[in-house]
């Protein structure tokens, strides 16, 4: 990844940060359910990025989001977990001849249904860890699952829309 590429991802992360803290943290549907955009950042990173860097980026980006939205370290925990899963998810989704080098995950490269699966797995993993850390007990298992599912579905829809808007802008 060269410097220009890095700068582009830095700007992505800033946009996601601002959208999350000033728009989506203020839109609440149901009680305590929010759209979580930060996961989009993990989704967009290049396919062949080293998993170490991925984990580190997830940790630091999650911590930044948490500081600004006063959510303890919930986003950090969720992002680290989904970054940990990403290599496995990608190898699950890759075509038989492997991914083309230099390509980035996107709706257009993956195709809509494949991208939806890709986004859904990561978002669900994120939301489950998020609410597990927030509620802090296994005895409220069904509340955790219920909250993760609803917030997850809303997040996947929003993430897909914003991702498509991002790509439009770039062209």
């Amino acid at each position, binding site marked *: 990844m060269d410097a220009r590429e890095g700068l582009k991802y830095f700007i992505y992360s800033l946009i996601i940060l601002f959208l999350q803290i*000033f728009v989506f943290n203020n839109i*609440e549907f149901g*009680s*305590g*359910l*929010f759209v979580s955009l930060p996961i989009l950042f993990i989704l967009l990173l290049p396919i062949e990025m080293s*998993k*170490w860097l991925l*984990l580190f980026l*997830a*940790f630091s980006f*999650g911590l930044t989001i*948490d*500081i*600004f939205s*006063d*959510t*303890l*370290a*919930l986003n*950090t*925990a969720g992002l*680290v*977990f989904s970054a*940990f899963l990403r290599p496995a998810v990608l190898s699950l989704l890759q075509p038989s001849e492997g991914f083309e080098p230099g390509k980035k995950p996107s709706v257009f490269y993956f195709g809509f249904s494949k991208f939806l699966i890709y986004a859904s797995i990561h978002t669900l993993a994120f939301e489950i860890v998020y609410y597990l*850390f*927030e*509620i*802090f007990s296994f005895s409220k298992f069904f509340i955790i699952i219920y909250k993760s599912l609803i917030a997850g579905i809303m997040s996947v829809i929003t993430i897909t829309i914003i991702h498509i808007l991002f790509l439009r802008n770039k062209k």
Partner: protein
Amino acid sequence: MSSFFDYIRKRSFFFLFLLFEFLAFIFTATEKRRPKLFFINSSDFFVSNLYTGFYSFKSYFSLKKENERLVKEIADLKNNLNSNFSIHDSTIIDSTNKNYNYFPAHVIKNSVAFENNFLTIDKGSNDGVRVDDGVICDEGIVGVVVNVSKNYSVVLSALNVMSGISAKLARTGHWGNTNWDGRNYRYVTLEGIPNHIKIYNGDTVITSSYSSIFPEGIMIGTIDTFGRNEEDNFYNIKLLLNTDFKKVSNVLVITDLKREEQLILEEETLKEFK
């Protein structure tokens, strides 16, 4: 031993993941217990300034100046209220003998969505806010200050599973504690009201005089539903909060000017009887 290190090296990605999750866990756990431990949060200078800017943009829609003027007036009136002075004599008004000091503040950040909700207000130690000061709004209680920086303070909302406020029934005077279960932001539970007394739906619940945080008689809410608990002889009461936490914006911070005196006296007494 070397095979052990081989194992660690092979699994080092997994262990880094565990380390990060463990760190997140530590932040979350310590923060839940005592919010001031975390190295940075929204009472921090940079983050707060950002939110202040956002707030001033938002308040354009809610006639900021008019509200400010009104809240200041309320603060002045409360400061001069007769019940705020210890000596109840119309001929002596000694402004040094006040029990409580009220001053206005703005909420610049608020949440009702989590199990642990906090508010950030735009007054800090420079304005005289101290930890354990009470915060109210015109509708009723809001919370307790838990963390103070120079220009900002973080308030533990009444909508926090760790929050407990000493309350009493206005009609009978029996006292108990309010708790929040983390679900609906309109309701809290009231515990500790013995079930031999008669209570009715709609009874008013106010703050008791037993805490050194709130003055007596601040509105908390009204009884929505209640049930008898056969196991422990106390009612299960569901309170409808009078404060609508989703629109709290102008608040009053209450400083108990005689709290130190009271606490020192109580501590000394405890020591003597040990």
